[in-house]
């Protein structure tokens, strides 16, 4: 995917490669969520080109964008939970794709097993704890095998045990399904643990895109180094 410019994002030139785990790192308010929303085709860039799989999406209709969006999934920092059972929440993406009943049962069971919520199918989703709700949202996001998974600070509100579980799930999905994953986070340690490549976003500007090793051992931009070393740059 290539991004041009957007008012609150400047000089964004970025390509995400198939199957990689790309971490978008930066402090709060840097524009990470805005960039993810553009990648998920929620918002249009004010100028520049936006491409998916070689297809230019600048003048796409809502329906065309929706068809592309059906190949993606996005997970928010705070999951939105439908007022139904855990099963119905997770099955939602399959139901709107008109999957048959057997497929739905099988895939929902598998997704819930991956996120460690097997056996909670009938539970009211609104009664889940915060960590469980996020894992259920994760199951809902992966149940239809999206090509691209966009994660907006998925562990920001979770305790260390749930953070570890979510990271394990991310790694498993990527290795088993080859899903392209973009994760927005301000957690440097998380990036070290799971990412392939890293982009650092500061004040709406993508100041550096580098391999994980490159970013942490020999950053190209002095501001990257300052951010990684915990200096406040806003």
């Amino acid at each position: 995917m290539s991004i041009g410019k957007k008012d609150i994002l400047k000089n964004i030139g970025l390509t995400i490669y198939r199957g990689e785990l790309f971490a978008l790192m930066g402090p709060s308010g840097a524009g990470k969520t805005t960039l993810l929303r553009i990648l998920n085709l929620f918002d249009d860039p004010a100028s520049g080109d936006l491409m998916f799989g070689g297809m230019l999406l600048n003048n796409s209709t809502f329906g065309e964008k929706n068809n592309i969006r059906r190949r993606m999934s996005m997970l928010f920092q705070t999951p939105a939970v439908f007022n139904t059972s855990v099963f119905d929440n997770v099955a939602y993406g399959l139901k709107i794709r008109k999957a048959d009943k057997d497929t739905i049962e099988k895939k929902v069971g598998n997704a819930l097993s991956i996120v460690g919520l097997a056996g909670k199918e009938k539970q009211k989703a609104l009664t889940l704890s915060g960590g469980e709700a996020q894992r259920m949202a994760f199951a809902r996001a992966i149940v239809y095998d999206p090509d691209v998974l966009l994660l907006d600070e998925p562990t920001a509100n979770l305790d260390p045990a749930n953070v570890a579980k979510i990271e394990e799930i991310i790694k498993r999905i990527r290795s088993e399904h080859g899903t392209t994953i973009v994760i927005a986070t301000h957690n440097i340690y998380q990036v070290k643990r799971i990412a392939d490549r890293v982009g650092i976003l500061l004040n709406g500007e993508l100041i550096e895109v580098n391999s994980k090793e490159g970013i942490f051992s020999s950053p190209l931009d002095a501001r990257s180094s300052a951010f990684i070393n915990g200096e406040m740059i806003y």
Partner: protein
Amino acid sequence: MSSVDFLFEGIIKAFDLIIGLDPYVLSITGVSIRVSGTATILAALTAIPLAFALSFLDFRGRQVLITLVNTGMGLPPVFVGLFIFVMLVPAGPLGFLRMIFTPEAMIIAQYILVTPIITGISLAAIKAVPGSIIETVYTLGGREMDAIIVTLREAKSGIITAILAGLGRALAEVGAILIVGGNIAYTGSIGGIGEGLSYTRTLTTAITSETSKGDISTSIALGIILISLNLSVNLLANLIQRRD
């Protein structure tokens, strides 16, 4: 006779009329349910799609329409009755329909009164659904219709409340239906219709006429039936919501 005596007599009479399946009371109750029920169903069929259109579509005049809906929630029933009356009297623009003093005219009046109420409350219920729910539908590949269906499901309790509020308003309404319905009950057997049966007389309009005749205990009895009816509807809705 003191007021308390009237009240006790009214309660006893209410039981007598209900248990004895009094034909006059049954026909009045039947007209009330038929008129208010039909008006509420028609209003809900208009109001709920309208509330969704006002929530999901961005069209010219949307804000004006929302203002009109909010204003309509407080429409004075007697004014609505007067307006419908002027339209439907034989000399009026819609006089050829010959609907004045019919249950149909009462349905129209209550439809006008109830539609803004159901629309307004449904609109508030839909707006209370977090934007993140709708965004999640889209992130999972849903289309606009999917977002509408999920919103309907999430706002269901509020929408049921809206319909109940509309039905409550319709059942309790008296000013408009008195003007356009005429509070007609047959005092003799006319054209095969049984004696003492209601044509356009409802529980509320009957209370006004019984009170003006000085039959306070019958009025209280009818009032108790009216309140019981409202209570039953609410209990039923409560049951449905709890089951869900």
